[in-house]
Structure formats: structure tokens, C-alpha cells
């Protein structure tokens, strides 16, 4: 029986790293998955690059551009995930944009994602009101479309949480992805609003870059998601990034354990 999203939250706080597929290459992406799992990652978000990633800050945007320039395509990423699946059953999610899935054909996309053992998708430009575009097809393939809540969600939190699948992605701050020195949102209050209506696990993302921040956010929720800080290491060390990312993920996981 392969692992599920729920399994990622079954042993204490979850650490969820994000990397952009194909930055610096798909071979390195594959090695990063194994290394991050060894370092204690509970679930991994794989970014399928998009030409115009409107929820991303400069770090992940640049990674998207580099990956696309390097010739990465959705099909090549599916092939890579299938190779990964031969070696590990770590829970994997895709994070990308609506047009990448829509253009591929949601049905065809899900068929390939299912075959590659992808458990869920995060599509930041598909809010609650538009999820009908995809959910029925995703459900048919048993793939979760994850929901997000933001500091501006307020009265929308209960509505979103009640229908949330997999885990609920809590956006820590206004703005786009990227490291922040300070997260001022009352994450504890957001979590409480979710827990009042749902048992779905909640993980916090956007702006987390240090073990201290990760611990603080994980203490207030069920886990921490880290993207830009890892992508920054990939950008700096390129082909040599695997041990550096591994050490970073280990430090983060150790902090929230």
C-alpha cells in the first residue's frame, strides 16, 4: 500500500519542501527528491514550470524561466516522476498553474499524473469558486485538488475548509512567494477557524526560510511548506546543490520535529 497525503501528517509535524522541476535539470530534480526524503521530508511539492507564474516571487519565477529555457516540458516531468516512483513511495504533489493542466487536457493530465503516482495538485490561480473546472475529473482519478486560504480569507475560511481535500495550504502572508523576515498574520487564529469545521491537516507556506520560522509556523499548524529558500540554494549551487539542499531540509525537519 503506497503512502498517502494523510500519512505525511501522521508522525508529528510535516515538513513539505518545494522544488521547481528541471532547475537546474530533471536529473538533479530526481536526486533532490531522494535526498530530501532521506533528510526527513514528509511530502514533496514538485513545481511544473509556467511561463507566467503569477503567484511567485522573483526566486521561483527565475527558476521557472531557467527550467523552461532548459527545455523542460510537462511530458518530461511525468517521465521523471515515473522513474522516481520505481524507487520511492514518498507522497508527491504537483504545484503549477491552471493553464498547464487545462492546456494538456485535464483528463489526459490526470491519467498521466495518476500513473506517476501523484497524489494531489496545487493550482494557485484556481480559487474555491472555480474549482468545479477540475474537481470532478481529479476525483475520478483520485487526485486531490488542494485548497488554499490566505490572510484575506476571513469569512471564506469555513466554506473552503469544509470542502478541503488532502491538506489545507495556509498562505502566511499577503503577496507572492518568497522569503520574509517576519510573518505577522495570526496563523493560530486561522488554524482554529479551520479546525472548528474540518479535520483536514493545515500546513503553512509563503515566506518561511529559517528553522526558527518553520518551528513557529508548524507549532501553530500541522506543518511547514518551504519553497523559495530551497530554490535559492538550487540557483546558487546548481549541479552541486543536492547535498546543500539535503542539509537544509534536515535542519528544517529537525527544528519542527
Amino acid at each position, binding site marked *: 500500500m503506497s503512502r498517502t497525503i494523510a500519512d505525511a501528517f501522521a508522525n508529528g509535524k510535516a515538513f513539505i519542501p518545494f522544488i521547481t522541476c528541471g532547475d537546474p535539470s530533471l536529473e538533479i530534480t530526481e536526486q533532490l527528491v531522494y535526498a530530501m526524503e532521506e533528510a526527513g521530508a514528509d511530502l514533496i511539492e514538485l513545481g511544473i514550470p509556467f511561463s507566467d507564474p503569477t503567484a511567485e516571487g522573483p526566486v521561483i519565477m527565475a527558476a521557472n524561466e531557467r527550467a523552461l529555457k532548459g527545455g523542460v516540458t510537462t511530458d518530461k516531468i511525468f517521465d521523471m516522476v515515473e522513474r522516481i516512483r520505481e524507487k520511492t513511495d514518498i507522497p508527491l504533489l504537483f504545484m503549477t*498553474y491552471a493553464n498547464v493542466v487545462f492546456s494538456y487536457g485535464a483528463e489526459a493530465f490526470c491519467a498521466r499524473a495518476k500513473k506517476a503516482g501523484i497524489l494531489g495538485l496545487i493550482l494557485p490561480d*484556481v480559487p474555491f469558486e472555480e474549482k468545479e473546472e477540475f474537481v470532478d475529473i481529479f476525483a475520478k482519478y483520485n487526485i486531490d485538488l488542494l485548497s488554499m486560504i490566505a490572510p484575506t*480569507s476571513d469569512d471564506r475560511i469555513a466554506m473552503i475548509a469544509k470542502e478541503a481535500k488532502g491538506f489545507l495550504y495556509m498562505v502566511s502572508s499577503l503577496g507572492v512567494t518568497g522569503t520574509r523576515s517576519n510573518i505577522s498574520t495570526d496563523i493560530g487564529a486561522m488554524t482554529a477557524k479551520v479546525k472548528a469545521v474540518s479535520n483536514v491537516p493545515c500546513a503553512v507556506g509563503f515566506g518561511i526560510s529559517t528553522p526558527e520560522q518553520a518551528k513557529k509556523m508548524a507549532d501553530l499548524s500541522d506543518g511547514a511548506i518551504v519553497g523559495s529558500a530551497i530554490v535559492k540554494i538550487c540557483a546558487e549551487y546548481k549541479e552541486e546543490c543536492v547535498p546543500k539542499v539535503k542539509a537544509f531540509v534536515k535542519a528544517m525537519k529537525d527544528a519542527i520535529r
Partner: protein
Amino acid sequence: MTNLKGRFGIHGGQYVPETLMNAVIELEEAYNHYKNDPAFNEELNQLLNDYAGRPSRLYFAKHMTEDLGGAKVYLKREDLNHTGAHKINNVLGQALLAKKMGKTRLIAETGAGQHGVATATAAALLGMECVVFMGKEDTIRQALNVYRMKLLGTTVVPVESGTATLKDACSAAFKEWTNRISDTHYCLGSVMGPHPFPTIVRDFQAVISKEIKEQCLAIEGRLPDVVMACVGGGSNAIGTFYNFIEDKEVQLIGCEAAGRGIDTAETAATIATGRLGIFHGMKSYFCQDKYGQIAPVYSISAGLDYPGIGPEHAHLYDIGRAQYVPVTDEEAVQAFEYLSKTEGIIPAIESAHAVAHAMKIVPTLGKDKIVVVTISGRGDKDCAAIARYRGENIYE
């Protein structure tokens, strides 16, 4: 069942990050309230008339009509508006709405700079802070408009990501809105983006077709046979079409920027070369590759250099109510020169795309036919760039 809010057939919708959902809902509620508020409308009409100079003229282009030897040509002179383009119609409406909503800061994207200048103008008039995002490439192509915005007290942010043109400016403006919502209104410049923008912008631009209808009836005693306009996102075109959509005998033609030709990669003709997608908050047609990556489009016109088209246009195309035709850089430049020489009117290079198609179809129509071409803006901003296109090395 998909979200029915803001749909035009299958197009439109609200594909925005959760962070912006309450902002677009708040905007929709405010708009639905104020659009029927007599005091708001009186204030807006006063601004449109006394400040922006409406109504704009419907001018009979006598020389062009004689020269082309076919239908009668009328020009809807949006170029005569304050700030030199149709953009001010929408901006005054949105800025006033933002002010009523308690917002103190406007942000906007701009391509050619016309929408940026209009937004900067409204911000100066209404005492609001203003930041305009403009592709780095366009700040070079339209340097004069950058200076104009600065003169009006606006901060211009050059956007260097992606193709450094209109789509990237638009993405940057959306990101800034995600970052700062409470005091900021995103004054979107075209009939695109998430609901309610395509509806709000269309309603504020519909004054163009409302006036054309009244003016044509007054002058000719009947409706025109054809109304046409250039299309990037499509705001002046939807403004030109809107009040004629139910008048099935009036032909609606949108002129897209084909750049170096629709058989090349250097084109921005969305209907001719794009396919259905989801981007910038809406479902519509987009220029994209087989994996859904948005294409790096090109046109000589910074204002039409956009890989998508507003959702209502996509729907009018689907149902066959409007027709969309590609016009190349070269054809647009020839039309730019033609209208300057024949009528003494220098049109914006964007508007010249519509003039170019008029030059093709007017001779094929009988002398009893009436064609209205919307001149969406004036061409002063383009003179240096067109001179360079023709090999004259002048700089502003």
C-alpha cells in the same frame, strides 16, 4: 457546473489566487451598488464631459471616403479625449469607484502608456497615489509617456521579467495588488482579467457605441452597416460594439495585431493563432504553445502586444456575432501614414490597425453603406517609433 459569475458563454470567470478573492468580491459589490447610484453617475458624467471632453466627435472622413471610392467612412474620435485616448473613459469610472470604496491608491498596467497616462491623470485629479507597471521594453518604445506619467506625479515601475511587455506589466500589477489590497485599487485597463473587470471596463467604455448610435442616427438617420476597432485586450472595441450587439444588421469587426504575420511567431493575433486557455484571471483565447506556456507575442504596437483577448470578445467570436481579422505591422504603418496625409489625423498605431482594415473593405462596399472606424487614440506618441520603422533615426 462552473462558476457562472462573470461568464460570457464559456469564457471569463475568476481565476485568481485566494488572496484576491475578497478583493474582487468587494469590487463587484461596490460596482453593483454605485452603477445605479444617481449621484455617482452624475459625478462621473460631469467628469467625462467637462474634464475629458465628451462626447467625442463622429467625423465624416470625406477625403478617405472619396479616395477609397466605396462606403462612407466615419471616424469616432476617441483620440480627441483628454489624455489622447479612449482609456480615460474607463479610468475616470474606476478611479471614482475606488475613491467611493475608500481606496487612496491606484495601481495599473500599461502597454503603450495610454492607460498609464490616463490612470496617472485621474490620480492627480482625484488626489490619489498612483503606481504604474510598464514592461521595460515598452518604457523604451514609449519613453514620452513614461515622462508624462512622472510629470503627473505617478511612480512608473519598469518590469523586466518575461518578455518585458504588456503581459508582464499586467502580471506585476496583479502581484502588487496581492501584496497590498486594503488601500489599493487595481485600475485594470482593458476588458480582461477576472470578473468583475471585463464587465466594469466594458460598461465604462460602452459610452463609445452609445454616442456612435446617437450621432449616426442624427447625421444619417440610420445605424451604420459596419463598426470596427482595433483589439488588444479589447476595451475600445467592446466599447465600439456594445450598444450594437443586439442590432444584428450592424457588422462588428475587431482588428488584431498580426505583427510580422500570422504565419510567423512574431504575432499577437489571438483569435487567428491562439487557443482556449486560462490566464490572467480569465478563460479565453491565448497565444500559447502545446504545453500551455504563454507565447512571447509581438506587435509594433505596444498597446496590442498582448497574448490574450477579453472574454466577451472570445464569446462574440464563438457565436459569430463579431468578426476578428489580423492586420500586420506594415499594413498598420501604411494606414498610420495614410490617415495622416488624407485627413490630417495622426492616429495611434493601435488605431491604425483598424484604419488599415477599413482601407481593405471600404472599397468593396457600396456608396450607400456606412462604416464607422474608432480612432482609439492619437498618434503623437508613436511618431518617433514609426520614423525609426521607416529608417529615419529620430529620437524623442
